[in-house]
């Protein structure tokens, strides 16, 4: 009896120790970034020095804001990510809803097409878009970059939303039809409210994907539409020597702050969104 209890306690201890170890591994890179951003650094320092804030300063942040066009990159990132969310929702919510209303072959064919598009490597789209945009005069514009983002968001969002709409029971709409609702009312007032949290989850994920996107920006942003992810790589040349290293860390912290805040506060939505596809093809 005693040994069984000890064994049980031992098991709890081991499980928590392993989870804690994993947490350290997961969070070490962002924690080191924060530590480096809050220390005065002209040269590389040992991790312990950084973590104990031996040379605490906020100077790096004021430098990151004033040098290197932070607000220019920030504005581009915000405009592109926010527009991507709005347009993706306007396009994909009706599209996914409609897909659950048609039946048989047609639905299967369209769903297959949408799923297939999710497998396309980004570089396959980015390279031709580069030339297409040069021809259309869209290279280096936010509109062009936004279109590129939509080419990955729309298949992803449609596929995910179909999963949410499929969970709405048919009886709900049938009751609406008996009450004489118009097709638009059925969609807007009957079904959409049921999947509201799914739509929120999708909006957050689309924002995060756009915010984090780098490949399209590198290919298509030119000089005028560069987002934060391109902005930070601008610093890297000087960083190898250790020169601007604290400022880069501060800059990096500013780039990841919004997505990490999302991850912590809107966690419930992100989890539901990411596991939504796990049970279906």
């Amino acid at each position, binding site marked *: 009896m005693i040994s069984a209890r000890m064994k049980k306690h031992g098991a709890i201890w081991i499980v928590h120790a392993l989870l804690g170890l*994993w947490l350290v591994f997961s969070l070490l890179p962002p924690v080191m970034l924060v530590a*480096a951003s809050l220390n005065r650094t002209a040269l590389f320092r040992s991790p312990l020095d950084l973590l104990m804030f031996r040379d605490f300063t906020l100077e790096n942040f004021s430098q990151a804001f004033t040098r290197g066009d932070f607000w220019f990159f920030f504005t581009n990132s915000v405009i592109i990510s926010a527009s991507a969310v709005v347009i993706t929702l306007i396009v994909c919510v009706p599209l996914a809803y409609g897909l659950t209303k048609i039946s048989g072959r047609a639905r299967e064919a369209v769903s297959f097409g949408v799923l297939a598009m999710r497998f396309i490597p980004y570089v396959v789209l980015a390279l031709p878009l580069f030339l297409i945009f040069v021809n259309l005069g869209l290279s280096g514009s936010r509109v062009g970059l936004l279109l590129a983002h939509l080419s990955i968001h729309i298949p992803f969002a*449609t596929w995910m939303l179909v999963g949410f709409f499929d969970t709405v029971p048919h009886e709900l709409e049938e009751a609406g039809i008996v009450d004489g609702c118009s097709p638009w009312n059925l969609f807007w007032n009957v079904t959409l409210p049921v999947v509201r949290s799914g739509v929120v989850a999708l909006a957050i994920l689309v924002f995060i994907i756009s915010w984090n996107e*780098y490949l399209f920006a590198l290919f298509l942003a030119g000089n005028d539409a560069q987002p934060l992810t391109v902005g930070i790589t601008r610093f890297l040349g000087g960083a190898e020597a250790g020169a601007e290293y604290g400022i880069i860390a501060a800059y990096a912290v500013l780039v990841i702050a919004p997505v990490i805040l999302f991850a912590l506060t809107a966690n419930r939505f992100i989890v539901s969104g*990411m596991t939504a596809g796990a049970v279906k093809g």
Partner: protein
Amino acid sequence: MAASRRDKFTRGWWFILPGLILMAAIVGTPLFMGFRYSLHDVFLYSFHTQNFVGLENYRRAFADPLYVNSLRITAIFTIGCVIISVGMGILIAFLLNARQVKFRAMWMALFLIPFVMTPVVGGIAWRFFIWQQEVGVLNQVLTFFGGPAPYWLLDRETALWATIITNSWHLIPLATLVFYAALTTIPDELHEAGRVDGAGPFQSLWYIVLPMLRPHILFVSIIIITSAFREFDMIWALTGGGPGRSTTVLSIFAYNRGIANQDMGMANTIAFTMFIIMAVVAWLYITLYRKTLGDKA
């Protein structure tokens, strides 16, 4: 009856058509043009003169040892990421699902951070603070125990493995999340029955949990294959494809050919072979998935 059926038909399609047309235009146009460019000689410095060369670009690509090398590196990178992510994902999910663990939502929220963290920034953080030869955490720990202090990212032998581990760090949360969600649906009675039969934690992992996770393993694998196969950001931030060409995956190779060498015909050819490889993988996945579902039914 006929009228209501037609109503039902048009009702769906009115919602679908605008989005479908936009999607076809926005994805179909670059895909078609990419294929078209791959059949032409297109150079950035004079891209208005495009000579049709048929499959010549494809022949040149497959004859190019650098392309074959890049294909090999992409395969190692992708398979490495899948094995590590699926393995660690199951393990962490299994630990998190242990009966005694409290505050599971909080653990999961913190575990998710590497997944949402901007990959370029993740790459920079790992390069400066973990892999860095002199003051990186890894070498600080190694030398503390009297170990060596290699140049992880500057050595051809280790750079690819360092990028695989870094990218797995980014992808494992996704795997953990899906497996954890699946584990919570396994009824307690099953574990109970296992315990009564004298199964320890490892037996229950192997004989009870893994068989039930089979469709989820397939699902996670395909997502990770898709993501790792096209990965650019993380590797670019860590090594830029170097040292030498030891981490030049196909995405980076295509970028180098197209933007740096200005050979857009060849770049699009490389990209289109990636598309074909992914199409085959997607087809395999859908076939396998139907079979797995068939087994269960």
